[in-house]
């Protein structure tokens, strides 16, 4: 084989995978994310109103001790764009929570970010009290469902996407069966942020 062709083929293969969105990110991590996974979270007053502070505390600490590059502290200040946690209400039946990411555009406006392509300024986490209390997965208590949802949504703020439902993971989109990061989740977290 021509010596110049072999490297060219390798480059073509790499670019093909890149264009197809399959590399270098892990299968369930976002290409986008915040500049650092060592960050703080601010609790909106709704969290205390519903008495979910300790559950959000657990959700944050669940992602600690896995990677030296990942740590979510708690702040009482909204300065410097910490992540923000809320407990709210939704009209979408069976929706338990969501975690939008935000960025600052070229004009300084804060707008929704594309989780796969943008560098985020911060995230918000909403856990929906009205749906979680009514629509728990079979066999789980309300407290377990809240715990699973908050850990899951906080995982999104660390650029973790949804895991295939075939995996044992707290990051599956559909259903709540795990309450803390599994080995799969830990591997994905480290693939994104390092050890």
């Amino acid at each position, binding site marked *: *084989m021509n010596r110049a*062709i*072999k490297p*060219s*083929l390798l480059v*073509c*293969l790499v*670019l*093909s995978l*890149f*264009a*197809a*969105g399959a590399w270098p990110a892990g299968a369930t991590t976002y290409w986008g994310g915040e500049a650092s996974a060592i960050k703080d979270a601010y609790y*909106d007053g*709704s969290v205390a109103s519903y008495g979910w502070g300790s559950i959000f505390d657990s959700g944050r600490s669940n992602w600690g001790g896995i990677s030296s590059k990942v740590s979510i502290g708690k702040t009482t200040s*909204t300065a410097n764009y910490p992540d*923000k946690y*809320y407990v*709210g*209400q*939704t*009209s*979408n*039946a*069976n*929706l*338990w*929570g*969501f*975690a*939008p990411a935000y960025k600052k555009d070229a*004009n300084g*406006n*804060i*707008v*929704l970010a*594309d*989780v*796969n*392509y943008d560098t985020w300024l911060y995230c*918000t986490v*909403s856990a929906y009290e*009205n*749906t979680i209390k*009514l*629509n*728990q997965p079979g066999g789980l208590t309300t407290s377990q469902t809240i715990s699973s*949802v908050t850990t*899951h*949504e906080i995982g*999104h703020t660390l650029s973790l*996407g*949804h895991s*295939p*439902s*075939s995996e044992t993971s707290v990051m599956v*989109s*559909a*259903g*709540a069966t795990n309450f803390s990061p599994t080995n799969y989740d830990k591997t994905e977290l480290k693939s994104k942020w390092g050890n």
Partner: protein
Amino acid sequence: MKRWVYYIGFFATAIMIVIAFFGQGSVKTTSENGSSNPIREVSIPASYKAFDSLGTLEQDADLIIVGTPLLDFEQREHVATYYDDGTLQDFYTLTEIRISKIMKKPTDFPVTDRIKAVEPVGLITESDKLQTKVKADHYSELKADKKYVMFLKKNTFGQYSLINMNNGKFNLDGTDVSDLTQDGESGIKMKLKQQIESKFGL
């Protein structure tokens, strides 16, 4: 190795790069007054109660219908709610549907051929005064004048809401390409659709 292998690899790469450029990463904007420019779209990661079998989906639904949305997406009622500090709390679209068949209903369901259903997608105006189409977990909205079977449940406000995201509505006449291509994992959507068509004779 033959030169043709090199050329195939080069052109395949070029094609994939073109596809990626025009794919999900592209952002288009529109002005607030509704000009004809495409709208920015953002999918927000969400967690929800999900079903991968018809039995459990059917059991959880309060209302199962075949119906057709009456209005185009942009003409529907779009709702967003915010926390006290202005942060987005929730979003949805109220989609008016003409019912052609009912397969399950509550005992107190009124005699009607119209219903409004909550879909987990909406149009919001952001701080840059531009509109953004926000959707939960890559949800693809029901399209006007196309026929779907839909699984609905009453929310805590008394409205009927789509459940199971993209796997809670199924285009029946093959005209919604986005619905047909939303089978993201293990063919669950296709499996459900086949079960639904078989059970309800659709």
